[in-house]
């Protein structure tokens, strides 16, 4: 029982990371209908910018990296990483994707792969982040928030860490904010209109290009937040071109597809779903095959419901 709840806690924390990344994939796909392969690299940049910034701030504060930093450092780092990645996302869309607006989808896909390779290897240059792993400073004390005991006599223990709780709450707040933005504001209505039909949205006077730029900024900011939270939970930061990042992005994309790509709520659902499958599979079956479970789930979902769990069936336009 305690094992079950402990796994559940981990899955909720990891799932909220997947969900945050999946949102970026799904929003871009909803509007431009292509897989933004460079999205996972924005997550990497988010993590590495957070690392650089927090080290910078902490050394300025007194040079003692071991001491617990003030509470606001995390917020400042999160906000600046989101802003920086938003700007990067905007630039990428402007320079690489916008000229290809009318090109075949496959060309855009290849460009996205090119952008992804570029970001990975550019980030790894010695004067940017370097090609060796680093350790993220602890912005939050790594302590228990809650300790639940089970059994009689109380023997089994479930520990809820502060970091996990913060990840879950931060991600939840961001997702609620996005939900409000997309479904309750004029800007969100415009985004949904562009996603529904770009040409008609343009005829209705919606500035399509501006909306697309905004979508990229939004998605990249969420990715940066995910990168920051990821670095908090797994402080050993792998080098920017490490395969582990691509795998992270891939799983998040799988989450978006499983939930129904283009559907904002589906991305969140898919993110938690694959985290559950991964964590419970790793715990109860074998942790060696945790990536296999995720992709197997993807293939099953695609075969049974090709549009994803919450996706609406789409007729091919001739």
């Amino acid at each position: 029982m305690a094992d079950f709840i402990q796994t559940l806690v981990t899955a909720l924390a990891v799932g909220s990371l997947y969900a945050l990344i999946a949102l970026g994939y799904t929003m871009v796909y909803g509007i431009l209908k292509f897989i933004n392969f460079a999205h996972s690299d924005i997550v990497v940049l988010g993590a590495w910018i957070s690392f650089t910034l927090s080290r910078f701030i902490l050394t300025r504060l007194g040079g003692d990296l071991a001491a617990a930093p003030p509470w606001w450092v995390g917020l400042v780092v999160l906000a600046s990483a989101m802003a920086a990645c938003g700007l990067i996302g905007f630039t990428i869309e402007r320079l690489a994707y916008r000229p290809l607006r009318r090109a075949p989808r496959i060309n855009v896909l290849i460009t996205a792969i090119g952008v992804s390779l570029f970001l990975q290897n550019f980030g790894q240059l010695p004067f940017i982040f370097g090609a060796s792993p680093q350790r993220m400073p602890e912005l939050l004390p790594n302590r228990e928030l809650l300790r639940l005991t089970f059994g009689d006599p109380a023997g089994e223990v479930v520990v809820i860490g502060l970091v996990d709780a913060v990840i879950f709450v931060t991600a939840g707040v961001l997702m609620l904010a996005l939900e409000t933005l997309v479904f309750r504001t004029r800007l969100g209505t415009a985004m949904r209109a562009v996603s529904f039909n770009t040409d008609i949205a343009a005829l209705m006077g919606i500035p399509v290009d501006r909306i697309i730029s905004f979508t990229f900024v939004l998605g990249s900011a969420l990715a940066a937040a995910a990168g920051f939270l990821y670095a908090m939970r797994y402080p050993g930061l792998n080098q920017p071109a490490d395969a582990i990042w691509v795998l992270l992005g891939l799983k998040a994309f799988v989450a978006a597809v499983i939930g129904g790509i283009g559907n904002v709520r589906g991305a969140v659902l898919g993110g938690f779903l694959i985290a559950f499958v991964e964590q419970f599979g790793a715990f109860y079956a074998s942790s060696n095959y945790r990536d296999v479970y995720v992709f197997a789930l993807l293939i099953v979902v695609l075969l049974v419901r090709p549009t994803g769990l919450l996706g609406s069936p789409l007729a091919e336009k001739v």
Partner: protein
Amino acid sequence: VTVSAPGKTADPAATSGRLRPLQVAWNSSWPLAAGIAVALLVDGLLPGAVGPYYSRIALDAGIAMTMALSLNIVNGMTGQFSIGHAGFMALGGYTAGLLTYYGSLWLWGSTARHGGAFGAGEWLFAASCLAAALVAAGAGYAVGLPSLRLRGDYLAIVTLGFGEIVRVILQQTNPVIRDAESLRNAAWNQLIPPPVGGSLGFVGLPKYTNLFWVYAFLAVTAVAAYRLKNSSLGRAMISVREDEIAAQAVGVNVTRQKVRAFVLAAAFAGIGGSLFAHESAVIITPRDAGFQRSFDYVIMTVLGGRGSITGVMVAATVLIALPEFLRDFEQYRLVVFALVLIVMMLVRPEGLFGVHEVWELWARRRRRGKKTNA
């Protein structure tokens, strides 16, 4: 909608209806024979002429060309987007390695090279290459049949996932069994999952790959690809690339064409993997199934021109040779490649050669020149 059919449309045999079987056999066999003759020449003359360093680059380029050409059947001719090609390659490499390594142990009691040129060992290797092609093709069928009903970008993700699954599964295999004695005494749990080295890679394979085998198999791949491109089968594939709905409307079974292309490509990738695994100073590891290697081949097909066989070959050679000359700029290599890829898509999305072969470009330029003269 125009379905472009590259190549000679004025082929008398094509216009007069059915091709005679003899002519079909001739059209395929003379380029193949020529290719194998070239392979013999390359193997005999190149090492003496340019030394071991450049021969090695030629060897790597030959394998890369085989891989890029096979991927081109799916990505170039059929217009699908597979980014898990290295998965098939690794599968083929491991299959062939399993056969040559344990076959040598069983037959000759040692895993060293056996026999000289065209000796028994080399024929075991050639047969293993074909077995690798079969296994990889089977995997291609198993992956392709369910997933090719999906639209393009979903296929990309499924193939990417496939490569990753192959990588993870290969990591869970047993350690390699060192000698014939322990092989005979091996318990079942040492043999299943197969003893191919786990994450350390398949160490100790006999090194049979040489310039002859690489260029002979490259000749087979290239001739098959070229004949395919100009056949009715290939045109059906090209019609799928140009417009799926229009192709369906004129009676092309779209899913079947995609599965065919996928299976063919996987088979040749299996051969490429076998050549790679038996190359000297190379240890095939599960990492070779990962997406980074797949991306390399995708870049080659994109730069060469989707559907152009010679174009892809040129691009593969350039992309293999270039880093060798840019050793000092190792860390900038991938940055530059990525930029080239992006700029290429923005400026010349059809690739260096588009759908044309190298000699077609030359002929077209000459025709244009003549017109201006007259």
